[in-house]
């Protein structure tokens, strides 16, 4: 067993003496299995992450957050259906939950822009996060997007500015933020909901700076080399756990659909509740220092 992996899997993000120790329910051998599976077939993981039958963030929010009440609008321009957000209960604790909505069926998908948010979506998310901070609610973000939308209106309304604003403000929100990538984590559009205290990734999810197709066509000048690109980008959940970008890996059943998602929901809920137990006990300053250091360490060269 690779030491690094074992450490990452069992490492506690909150390692203070008072905080309870967090352990994953699955042993090291499972992690090793997962690693072999995933690094052998990065492209398979990409395909699974994009599978149309895979549960979406909205399914997770409905299944995990009791009594979820959805709120709308960014109070500036409009309401982006590609991002859903609201409040509800997780383990007896009020939380704010935000997720990307991909939609099912062509009309719903079109309405949600296939899960590619516009700037007003990110601004709605940020508004709800500020609200959460005001009422001391932890924030849960459920991410599954090919990326932020790259269209004319998105440019005109400041897609770059909206994402940048989320990054800087999420790094300073004094309540715990837990993010989970359930499928695709597409670049800045996913990162805009992933500046968090603890990042969870489902076994067959990916998180990358660029799509494998994009990387292949730009760097390899050959769009057909997407499989190589998927491998080279180290974008699977297992790779990211090893790189210490993701903190926890959630195993999936072989056939992963809305009908078979219960075990995943259960394990994710348990781990999130467990994480909140620790993070909610931290003073805000300590919480923010740790969040700062979490990102400070990634690609730190000193």
């Amino acid at each position, binding site marked *: 067993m690779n030491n690094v992996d074992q450490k990452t899997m069992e490492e506690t993000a909150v390692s203070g003496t008072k905080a309870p120790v967090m352990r994953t329910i699955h042993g090291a051998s499972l992690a090793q299995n997962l690693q072999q599976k995933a690094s052998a077939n990065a492209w398979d993981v990409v395909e699974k992450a994009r599978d149309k039958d895979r549960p979406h963030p909205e399914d997770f929010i409905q299944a995990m957050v009791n009594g979820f009440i959805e709120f709308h609008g960014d109070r500036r321009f409009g309401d982006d259906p590609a991002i859903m957000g609201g409040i509800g209960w997780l383990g007896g604790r009020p939380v704010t939950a935000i997720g990307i909505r991909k939609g099912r069926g062509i009309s719903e998908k079109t309405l949600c822009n296939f899960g590619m948010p516009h700037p007003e979506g990110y601004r709605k998310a940020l508004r709800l996060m500020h609200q959460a901070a005001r009422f001391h609610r932890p924030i849960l973000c459920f991410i599954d997007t090919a990326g932020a939308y790259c269209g004319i209106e998105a440019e005109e309304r400041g897609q*770059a500015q909206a994402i*940048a604003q989320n*990054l800087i403000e999420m790094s300073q929100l004094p309540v715990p933020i837990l993010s989970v990538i359930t499928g695709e984590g597409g670049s800045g559009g996913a990162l805009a909901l992933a500046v968090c205290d603890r990042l969870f990734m489902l076994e067959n999810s990916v*998180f990358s700076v660029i799509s494998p197709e994009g990387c292949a066509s730009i*760097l390899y000048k050959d769009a057909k080399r997407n499989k190589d690109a998927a491998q080279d980008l180290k974008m699977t959940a297992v790779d990211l756990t090893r790189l210490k970008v993701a903190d926890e890996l959630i195993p999936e059943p072989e056939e992963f659909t809305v009908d078979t998602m219960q075990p995943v929901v259960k394990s994710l809920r348990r781990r999130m509740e467990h994480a909140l137990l620790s993070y909610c006990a931290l003073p805000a300053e300590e919480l923010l220092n740790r969040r700062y250091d979490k990102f400070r360490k990634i690609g730190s*060269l000193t």
Partner: protein
Amino acid sequence: MRDLFEKPAAGAAPQGSSDALFIRPVMSELFIETKEWVDCPGCKRRIASARVEENQLVCPRCRHHFRMDAPRRVDMLLDPVSFIPMPLSHTRVNRLNFPGYGKKLISYQKKTGMRDGLLAGTGCIKGQPMAVGVLDYRFLMGSMGAQVGDGLTRLTELAMAQGLPLIIVSASGGARMQEGIISLSQMAKVSAAIGRFQQAGGLYISVLTDPTTGGVSASFAMLGDIIIAERKALIGFAGPRVIQQTIRKKVPPGLQQAENLLANGFIDRIVDREELRELLGQILRLHEKSVL
């Protein structure tokens, strides 16, 4: 002099030593002075390189702003001999072992005389002390990997520790693909550092030059207390080609030009290159008394 951006020899002057005060940045080898004539993309006419060069890389006929490399930018903006460079790290950055990336880095290091696409340090503009970071478009299109992200984070922390205003001049295509998730994470890291700096009362001026897109525009470039852009700079989230592929239509001309961002309310001012130093000097002086 070239040593400044190469690996320093053992026992070389540490950051901020007084030796560095007398070193001026090297000039680009990649660019204009290597040719006698250039074709201006603005007026499509052929001009003597020397004439463009003595005019701060602005076409004397049509005012087209040629892209400017980082050493030249520092030279143009800062008071003479005031620049003290902050060295970049010598740690290996190809952590994903991305095929071909290591070689590419070395070849660009040789071509530009820089370690990566960032030139950072402290100095003065019109007598006002400040910390400055300049991205260099010549180095893999100014893309941000760990070196640039880490450098900018350390620069911001340095500005905070020394109570200096911070200026970042962006010229970048975005996050560096070859560093995968590490480069994406730099967006959050630099933004978080700037958040702390601004919270502590620091002044951050973001200068956008051609081009500023992708992961750079979607992080620190758009977070300035004051955002200034050079005339006609391309600024946006996605590159024009990606937009075209997404919408399957022609992108309207000027959509991502600085002038359009100004009209839409995303930047504070547009400047001609020769006014930039003067403007920064004035803004810095207006913030002289601000506490940090």
